[in-house]
């Protein structure tokens, strides 16, 4: 397959990767774009460590192909800068080894975009998309609750 130039935006900047369009997205992001925050664990769409946002929706980048993001806005954890979620994760100790953390932050960002006032049960359901083996989840749920409140508060 001849390489193609695939254009999309990555973390707010224009990106153009010349590669085989059937490359898995996680591979392309890590190998061609230096997106170190995209962690690959299961390579099977199960764990969510590689979660990125594609046009605002969460997706396992190990289970997408490069061509599928053509013209899309792709966001990784590197997009977040002093985001209320990061601050809440820090305050609550919502990460330990950190391998799942980028994926959870992106997942939570998508949740709060979809539902700015989620209940605890809604948060738990949404976060059940990804796996964290370290924390036991309560602290992640609490951090998302707090970030949601902070983001709703008038600036």
């Amino acid at each position: 397959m001849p390489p193609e130039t695939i254009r999309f935006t990555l973390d707010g900047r224009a990106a153009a990767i010349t590669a085989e369009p059937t490359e898995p997205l996680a591979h392309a992001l890590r190998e061609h774009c230096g997106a170190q925050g995209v962690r690959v664990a299961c390579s099977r769409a199960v764990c969510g460590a590689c979660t990125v946002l594609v046009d605002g929706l969460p997706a396992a980048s190990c289970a997408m192909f490069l061509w599928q993001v053509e013209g899309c806005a792709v966001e990784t954890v590197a997009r977040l800068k002093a985001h209320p979620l990061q601050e809440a994760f820090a305050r609550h100790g919502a990460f330990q080894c950190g391998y799942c953390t980028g994926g959870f932050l992106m997942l939570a960002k998508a949740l709060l975009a979809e539902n700015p006032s989620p209940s605890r049960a809604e948060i738990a359901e949404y976060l059940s998309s990804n796996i964290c083996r370290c924390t036991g989840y309560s602290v992640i749920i609490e951090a998302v609750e707090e970030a949601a409140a902070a983001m709703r508060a008038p600036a």
Partner: protein
Amino acid sequence: MFRAAHGLIATTVNTAPRAALCRACDVAEAVAALAQPGAAAVAGGTDLCAGFNAGLTPSLLVDLSRLEVLRGIEITTEDIRIGALVTHAQGSRDQGLRAALPGFAAAWGMLANPRIRHRATIGGNIMARHTRYEMSLLLTALGARLVFAEGEQTPAQVWNAAPGLLTHIVIPRHAGQRFIYMRGLRPQLTLAVHRHAGGGLAAIGTEWLHPVALALADAGLEELPETFADHVISRWYARRAGAALLARGMEALDAA
């Protein structure tokens, strides 16, 4: 991890097969591309990586995303016609479907998880042919037909056959039609109950077995095949717990 000729080899996103890409613009092009040896369709793509891990090495990926005719849900008095590319998120939130067959829309909305639901499609769920994926069971209970570009099949047939392009799923409508999906014991055991004025059907499935249709009157699951057991649950348990689920499902439909 896949079984090569002489041992096991683990694959990753870095070892994905180098496949060509066909961005099919219409059904004919997709069908032609899929007829080539080594071709595989891509709907959401959420399960293909699992296929790669299991040793699937397609040489051509056929992107279905441009096939607008495979999207959307049409509801008539006769039936519900669901495009193969409808995602779980779209389907379960579809107003028409929720009005016509709320139990099914609710069940659809429970599959997988929010991250998967945005991308995964009803067609991919069926065609992934994983006993752990549930759409086949739901459609078995509903007596649905699977419409391929090449012809029609039942959900049960798909487990064995190698069809080409799934375009639609057709669920027949009935007077007094009701549906409930009992998923609390998942993944070990799940059961769907479909009832209507003229009868109905239940379907039972496990993590590792093809779903089996059951007569609603079979309260004790007498007809459950002798072989209905996997390494997680026994047939004894499938019958006992299945009977409890069936009774509860019937009761819930009565109450609804």
